[in-house]
């Protein structure tokens, strides 16, 4: 896979869960301490092949998320490196206190992998959407929060997480995305990646929305608006320097993400901007319990399409 020089919108698309299972299997081969922990989510996490390769190292606690995260904390205490793999909605909502007390406060070496986050579950509705996960976990001290944008970044983030000691939350997208990074990409926490230089306006995004922001920048460029695109996979810690530079150097910032507008990436950027260099910020995300609709329909509805992001940027610079 290499990124060629045509619009990112025309590139082939990938389900990041495939990169997830591939990388997890590689890591498990390299390090015997790595185990998977699931809640009847072997299929939805695409872990069937992992179970076949490591039957003893995939622990299925059943439909019991609080138990799942508590068990992971105990596994870490015993020297294992558990990768908890469950639908992000149930992992973060149901086991929030375990994440806070048993993982973050206890500083255990647990990797929380939130599968199919955001509105990936579309028509299954707000109970299954995981738009609050970023906001909830951001509020917890000691959590690293990573929202990869493509399969390369998903794999790189997993490799980084396996190598560091401590709690990490990684979103693993189900909604297919094009490859936006070169194969050589390595993940660095707290670092924004400049996907496109520009000085009129800044678009900050991550996850499944990043490529849409990149297409928005292409559309804006055609009208003579030069948009900087910052990829912000590391929501916590945030790249404060890059955000402040964007606030100083461009007319304003548009954040675009597949999560709630309260307390997510947009919230993190806004908190930074008001404290360091007040500037105009528009936050795009999911503002409510979404109505029935497919994931694509919902992203369009809330202005998270390339056109929607470009519109918001135009309003900001005009």
């Amino acid at each position: 896979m290499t990124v060629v020089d045509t619009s990112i919108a025309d590139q082939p698309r990938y389900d990041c869960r495939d990169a997830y299972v591939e990388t997890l299997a590689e890591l498990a081969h390299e390090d015997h301490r790595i185990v998977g922990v699931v809640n009847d989510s072997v299929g939805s996490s695409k872990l069937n092949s992992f179970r076949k390769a490591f039957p003893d190292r995939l622990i299925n606690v059943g439909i019991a998320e609080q138990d799942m995260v508590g068990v992971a904390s105990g596994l870490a205490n015993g020297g294992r490196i558990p990768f908890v793999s469950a639908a992000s909605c149930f992992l973060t909502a149901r086991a929030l206190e375990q994440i806070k007390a048993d993982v973050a406060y206890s500083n255990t070496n647990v990797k929380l992998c939130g599968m199919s986050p955001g509105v990936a579950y579309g028509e299954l509705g707000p109970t299954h959407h995981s738009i609050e996960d970023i906001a909830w976990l951001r509020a917890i001290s000691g959590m690293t929060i990573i929202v990869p944008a493509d399969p390369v970044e998903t794999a790189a983030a997993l490799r980084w997480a396996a190598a560091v000691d401590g709690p990490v939350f990684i979103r693993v997208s189900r909604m297919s995305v094009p490859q936006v990074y070169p194969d050589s990409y390595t993940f660095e926490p707290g670092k924004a990646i400049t996907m496109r230089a520009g000085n009129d306006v800044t678009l900050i995004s991550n996850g499944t929305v990043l490529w849409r922001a990149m297409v928005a920048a292409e559309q804006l460029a055609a009208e003579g608006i030069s948009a900087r695109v910052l990829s912000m996979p590391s929501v916590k810690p945030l790249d404060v320097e890059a955000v402040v530079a964007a606030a100083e150097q461009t007319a304003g910032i548009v954040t675009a993400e597949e999560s709630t507008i309260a307390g997510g990436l947009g919230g993190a950027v806004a908190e930074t901007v008001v404290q360091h260099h007040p500037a105009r910020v528009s936050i795009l995300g999911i503002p409510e319990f979404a109505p029935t609709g497919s994931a694509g329909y919902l992203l369009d509805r809330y202005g998270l399409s390339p056109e929607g992001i470009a519109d918001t940027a135009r309003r900001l610079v005009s």
Partner: protein
Amino acid sequence: MSKAALSVEHTTMPLLGRLPAHSSRAEQVAHIAEAARQIRIQDLKLVYHAGAGHIGGDFSAIDILATLYGAVLEIGPETVADPERDRFILSKGHVAGALYTTLAAFGFLPITELATFLKPLSALNGHPNRTKVAGVEANTGPLGHGLPIAVGHALSAKLDVSLRRTYVLVGDGELQEGSNWEAMMAASQYQLDRLTVIVDRNRLQQGATTKETNDLDPLPEKAAAFGFAVVEVNGHDHGELLDVLSAVPFRPGKPTFVIAHTHKGHPVSFMSNNVAWHHKVPNPAEYQQAMTELETVGQPRLAVSPRLDKELR
């Protein structure tokens, strides 16, 4: 053969409604059986044409739903907002399609509205929403929520000194969630004998059997130890379901735990007891075969041998 998108053309189920209260048991049972058959046919159309849904769990639960709404619950379209209505809470919310179809069969929503299932802005979401659909009591979907809500409603009825009843349907895989057992302790502590928990005991969950995942057995003994009067029924036998679900409470002062032995995907031959059909959508050939079976199969058969607790009957 290409598949048409779900439309009103596919909402062919007749309005079934309820029989007069003085009808004989045999008439009631025949009526429930026909309702269940019609609901399955309609639900198959929804899942097939919408291209999504949880048909295995739907078909597992439809006989229970048809019995409750067809003859047991004191609730109808006119009394859907009556504070004294019986409450039914669908805790395994992923079978929303079965619930909507059942509600439509008994007049709670227009049958043609089923054509909006899963469409943009539809009230008929993949999981039920009480603020959008009359007859839905709780916004379930995350497993392990319905039983605590049912306990709360039963407590509320008790505080009102009301005889209204509370029924909650849970999946057996769902019982792996600890919240259920917390709620069961509260139910027996408060002696909620007008609360009935029905377990859809199909022995399958999303990815495997319950036994392979997190075995629940001995389930009757566990529920009894948590202070419940336990009854086991054939969850596809409308007569047994009718007798048991209308007879609660079995023991004064004790909530009731009905273990309904079922098969996921019942009675479609290739779906029945097959975990692959948790949320699979039939292809055109499978659809045709399933439809033929539903239209021609008379009284469904079940391979498990149910046992009714002798002491209780």
